């Protein structure tokens, strides 16, 4: 149903339509409105057959989710930033145990310095956790990805993180076609766990595995992650068939036909980028956009194919590796190995700094003529930074 709704509310209502049986959460900005919405839906009996557990920490939130999922319940939680880091040990445990938990990450910067605003450093820090990571461009996609996430998770018996930009999406009111219950029911079958704790068929889950089998266990997990690429793509196609809209999948191209320069990014910034690309196209510049929805696992082959006509790519990221540079760009480079495609890296939007059309236009105009550095920090106050660096060095 079409509604003018806050992103968090759209997600909460969509998650409820997925009929979760256990929801556990610890509040952290900017995730709060999602779990507040869900707690209300459970409390007012809109969401029946669901236990909402207020836990004492994010570590407990993921741990409760582990116990519930292992007992065969469809399980959901949400977090952000420091909260995601606080639950990391359990995040890895959930994927290692193969539990199909769905978690929203309302993307937010990591401190110190403490900062509550959006960037991607929280979920990017979990890129090797074994969770599938999907990034939403709009609130419509954020809602839709949750429906797909449960399907993907349960089909693979793997946990899925749905990443949506904190505040920019979570707190934005916009038009969303919130998935209807009957549509969701047609798309998402009841959860049938692969293994479950059941006294009538006792099972030991979480045994200690030594050197003689650990490599094989990890290799099997690796293969399952590769298999996820097909499952994610199929989940997107199936979604379109029932909901009549294109949402999810692995990658989404925009004006790629004839594009010599392709901007690659994840999340809500893609909207701003598309506006700039529209303007540049209108000015006759051959530029396009490639949005990454599935960052883990990374669709190397598809990305390479979609970039076959590009002379250069610009990878815009809201997180980076200190002393190294971008994170996403390393995956893009792996995809493009052996090609002559140039790549440029721009780090933008850290700690919620606005990514403006003007700044993007200025940068893209130069990048299109290879006239930018390999690594650029968008809108960096270079003078201030240089001054402080010099002062710290005692000069």
């Amino acid at each position: 149903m079409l509604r003018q709704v806050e992103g968090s509310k759209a997600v909460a209502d969509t998650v409820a339509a997925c009929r979760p049986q256990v929801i556990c959460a610890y509040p952290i900005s900017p995730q709060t409105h999602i779990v507040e919405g869900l707690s209300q839906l459970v409390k007012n009996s809109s969401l029946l057959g669901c236990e909402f557990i207020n836990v004492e920490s994010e570590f407990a939130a993921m741990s409760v989710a582990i116990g519930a999922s292992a007992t065969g319940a469809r399980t959901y939680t949400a977090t952000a930033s420091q909260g995601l880091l606080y639950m990391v040990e359990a995040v890895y445990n959930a994927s290692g145990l193969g539990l199909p938990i769905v978690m929203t990450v309302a993307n937010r910067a990591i401190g110190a310095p403490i900062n509550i605003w959006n960037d991607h450093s929280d979920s990017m820090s979990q890129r090797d956790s074994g969770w599938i990571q999907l990034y939403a461009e709009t609130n419509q996609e954020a809602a839709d990805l949750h429906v797909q996430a449960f399907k993907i998770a349960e089909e693979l018996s793997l946990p899925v993180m749905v990443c949506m930009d904190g505040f920019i999406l979570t707190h934005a009111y916009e038009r969303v076609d919130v998935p209807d219950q009957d549509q969701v029911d047609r798309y998402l079958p009841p959860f049938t766990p692969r293994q479950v704790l059941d006294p009538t068929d006792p099972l030991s889950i979480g045994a200690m595995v030594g050197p003689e089998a650990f490599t094989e266990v990890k290799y099997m997990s690796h293969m399952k992650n590769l298999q996820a690429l097909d499952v994610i793509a199929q989940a997107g196609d199936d979604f379109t068939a029932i909901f009549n809209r294109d949402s999810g999948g692995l990658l989404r191209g925009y004006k790629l036909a004839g594009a010599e320069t392709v901007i690659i990014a994840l999340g809500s910034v893609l909207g701003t980028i598309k506006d700039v690309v529209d303007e540049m196209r209108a000015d006759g510049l051959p530029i396009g956009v490639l949005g990454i929805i599935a960052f883990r696992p990374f669709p190397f082959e598809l990305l390479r194919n979609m970039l076959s006509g590009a002379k250069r790519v610009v990878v815009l990221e809201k997180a980076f590796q200190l002393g190294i540079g971008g994170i996403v760009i390393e995956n893009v480079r792996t995809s493009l190995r052996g090609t002559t495609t140039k790549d440029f890296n721009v780090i933008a939007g850290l700690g919620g700094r606005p990514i403006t059309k003007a700044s993007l236009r200025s940068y893209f105009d130069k990048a299109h003529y290879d006239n930018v550095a390999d690594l650029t920090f968008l809108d960096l106050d270079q003078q201030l930074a240089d001054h402080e660096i010099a002062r710290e060095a005692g000069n």
Partner: protein
Amino acid sequence: MKLRERLVIKLSTNPVKFYQVGSFAVGNRLLSAEDRSIQSDPDRTNALTSGHRACQGCGEALGARYALDAAMRASGEKIIAVNATGCLEVFSTPYPESSWRIPWLHSLFGNAPAVATGVAAALKAQGRTDIRVVGQGGDGATVDIGFGALSGMFERNDDVLYICYDNEAYMNTGVQRSGATPPAARTATTQAVGENPGNVFGQGKNLPRIAMAHEIPYVATATVADLRDLEAKVTKAMSFRGARYIHVLVPCPLGWGSQSCDTIKIARLATQSGLFPVFEAEHGEVVASTPIRKRESVEEYLKLQVRYSHLFSPSRRDDVIDHLQAIADKNIARYNLMSTENEGQ
């Protein structure tokens, strides 16, 4: 009459009848069939079966088996166990083997209470509350790294029985100090060196009392010296809904430097000296304590354990022994352990 009541009355009214030479053990043959220990039944429940890799004389293996078999029987064999990382987890489930005959989940060191909450929540959502949940871990998992999760489980009054097998240090990692390590005890991180050898005085947590402060329905302590008492307390705990906590003292021959054959004896000396008070509390109030039958000095307890050997050689440390005796005396007064009031109930 409930099983627990029968047991308490028989144990406390006719103690002499069950005395055997050199032992406080209760002879099963003197009891009616339904009052006999679960372990005496050839068709007993069997949560933790043989073949696991616990050390000889392991108090934790013994305590876990009695506790979980009792929980199995009390629940009609419908239990799910959640285990913290530790000796119990490692010795019972080296892949591809498992000693568990019940559904069993190990997640992490510090999250067993929260995982158990999740299991209970799932069962409630699925309408399967006939299946009961037991969380368990050692003292490190319980009083230290999992303490936040345990307190959260308590305050929400989640329908979980959590059992701590307390061997008073991190045994699985090689006997390091935990928040349950008693004063003066030698561990790998509180060495028997310097002017005040062993663990310091004035530190450590009393988790049963912390559990009581949450006003949960049931808190009890027990030891492997009185396994019938442990069975009875688990059975009683299973008669409550909500958060329940049982703290079981389980001597560790390896970590304590004691003879494997002395595990029961040492556990008994811990209670008979007053160092480990055995009691029950309901909704935050102590409702019963087990009187000391034959009082022993703490020295009798200490001298059987290498972890306290620095109190006796090269020179005797009467000051430290007296300090430990004072702790025992305080427990005896606090829990009324020398009382004869309970006898003849």
